[in-house]
């Protein structure tokens, strides 16, 4: 499949009073046409910063995308485009859905106008045409009584309804890439499922590629084709959803999977990864996860691991994959999953 987006050596720093925070430290990934790539990781791992930088929505005053970073979309390096050029891409080619639907709609503007805005801006349609299209979009995202509700304000909708509206805004111009930044985190569980179903159905209908940011592995299993795991401003493991869930290689991914409640386990205690995320003001030498890693070796503290190839689609940055590394036993939860992996492999992967 063709790559629609290629991110190479993305490095981003924030300049704060305390010093330079190296939020993103050389991230590489690609997004294939029509696929859903999930980016997972804990708070502060750099998921949101990565995607905001694709849209160039980081605050100009204190953030810096370092020279050499490449965000290639249709032959253009988005990291180097001017504001005017970016305006033509935002909302038209690449759209975004935000985490909190309660605050991401303008409270003093009718929702119809908010949906019509990108249409009028990018497709130069008349107000009447934009309104008709807005009605279609509201029907598409499953909002009841769109004719009546198009003239209402955001406060007259529930959280789930507002997220449907935000999705309608994002899809208005049939974007080639949709970035969803934790779109279900602020919703309650039943609504989460509805929104996820909606997104999956819409992706089939309008043929868009999705980058889905989340820290909820349950959601990942539900929507993603491929998964990238981020830690300390880097991608430390990337693979298909089956590879990450059933054959994870990085100890951090092991930790994530072990800390996920599962139906097969009888354990009463849920596993938690010890320690706290690294301080990116002074990023640690070597593997950023080493200090929290019970499998850490001496080299982890000295030198950063490169990406080791596990399969054509599966890479992980851990010295454990080095030919000279000792064989270690992954946690029970992971082992149980790895045992299922060979049979999984015979079935076609994916959602």
């Amino acid at each position, binding site marked *: 499949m063709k790559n629609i987006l290629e991110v190479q050596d993305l490095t981003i720093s924030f300049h704060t009073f305390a010093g330079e925070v190296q939020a993103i430290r050389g991230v590489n990934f690609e997004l294939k046409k029509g696929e859903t790539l999930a980016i997972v990781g804990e708070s502060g791992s750099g998921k949101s910063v990565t995607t905001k930088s694709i849209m160039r*929505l980081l605050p100009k005053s204190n953030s810096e995308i370092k020279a050499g970073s490449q965000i290639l979309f249709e032959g253009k390096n988005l990291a180097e485009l001017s504001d005017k050029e970016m305006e033509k891409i*935002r*909302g*038209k080619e690449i759209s975004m859905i935000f985490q909190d639907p309660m*605050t991401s709609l303008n*409270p*003093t503007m009718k929702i119809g106008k908010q949906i019509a*805005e990108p249409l009028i*801006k990018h497709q130069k349609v008349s107000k009447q045409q934009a309104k008709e299209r807005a009605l279609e979009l509201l029907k598409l995202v499953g909002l009841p009584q769109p004719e009546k509700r198009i003239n209402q304000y955001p406060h007259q909708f529930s959280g789930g309804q507002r997220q449907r509206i*935000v999705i309608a805004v994002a899809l208005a111009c049939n974007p080639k890439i949709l970035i969803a930044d934790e779109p279900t985190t602020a919703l309650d569980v039943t609504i989460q499922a509805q929104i996820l179903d909606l997104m999956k159905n819409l992706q089939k209908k309008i043929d868009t590629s999705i980058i889905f940011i989340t820290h909820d592995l349950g959601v990942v299993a539900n929507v993603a084709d491929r998964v990238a795991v981020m830690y300390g401003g880097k991608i430390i493991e990337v693979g298909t959803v089956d590879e990450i869930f059933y054959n994870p290689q990085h100890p951090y991914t092991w930790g994530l999977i072990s800390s996920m409640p599962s139906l097969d386990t009888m354990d009463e205690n849920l596993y938690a990864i010890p320690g706290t995320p690294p301080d990116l003001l002074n990023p640690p030498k070597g593997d950023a996860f080493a200090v929290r890693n019970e499998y850490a070796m001496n080299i982890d503290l000295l030198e950063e691991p490169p990406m080791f190839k596990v399969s054509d689609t599966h890479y992980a940055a851990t010295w454990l994959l080095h030919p000279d590394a000792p064989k270690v036993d992954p946690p029970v939860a992971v082992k149980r999953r790895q045992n299922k992996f060979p049979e999984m492999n015979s079935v076609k992967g994916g959602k």
Partner: protein
Amino acid sequence: MWKYLLKRVILMLITLFLIASLTFFLMKLIPGSPFSAASKLSESQLAIMNAKYGLDQPIPIQYANYMINILKGDLGISFQFNNTDVTQLIMNRVGPSATLGLQAMIFGTIFGIFLGVIAALRQNTWLDYGSTLVAVLGKSIPSFVFAAMLQYYIAVKLGLLPVAFWRGWEYSILPTIALSIFPISIAARFMRTEMVEVMGSDYITLARAKGASSFEVAFKHALRNALIPVITVLGPLAVSLMTGSLVVERVFAIPGLGEQFVKSIQVSDYPVIMGTTLLFAALFIFIILVVDILYSIIDPRIRLSGGKN
């Protein structure tokens, strides 16, 4: 909506009644009488004058008479200006004050909001610091200093505009500028703070993610959301500007309300004091109602009356 307005109007009348009563009694507490300044009068002449104007009667009776007269729409006659009707007197004076106040308010608000928005959009640049400087100067320099400077440099040195008096629109320009400095600084500071906060909100990021230019983001999305607190402070300020500024009116020799009001207090011209106070109070209450209605127009989440809409 109409029911709500009716309720508000009734409340306004009650408030006005209370203000009128309170002012009446407070005024009577001030020692002296309208005729004590013209001290050439003998005891018997004073008694005749007091009887003529009804000032010899007990205060409750005077109060009752005054209230009845107000209800009839009669504000009484002035003691100092040759028995002129108070309504007439205020009418003659309100024109220049209201013109100046309104002009200063419109100019000050628009310019102040503009300064505040610029400062917020270009945070921590020289534009921001410049706007802050203007605001701080505007708040800390008294308006008469500013008025005198305008007169000296623009009117006297450059000869661009008339120095004083009230003989046409060009005479109102300098006093308007002098008066508008205060609303400019207030509007600029409030606007900056609010805009900075609004520009950091999620819906602004979403608007940018839709491809809106920074101009569209600021004026189509942020401005309306940032206006509420600004209107809250500017409403009452508008009243105090429209009812005349003693200092600026004095400096520019403008026959306005502010000057007349102060003179009336000095000579215990009771009917003029009462009349002017009632006018100020009525305007003030009215502006508060206007501000409340503006809130509900600007922000759909604010509803005037409780219950179903």
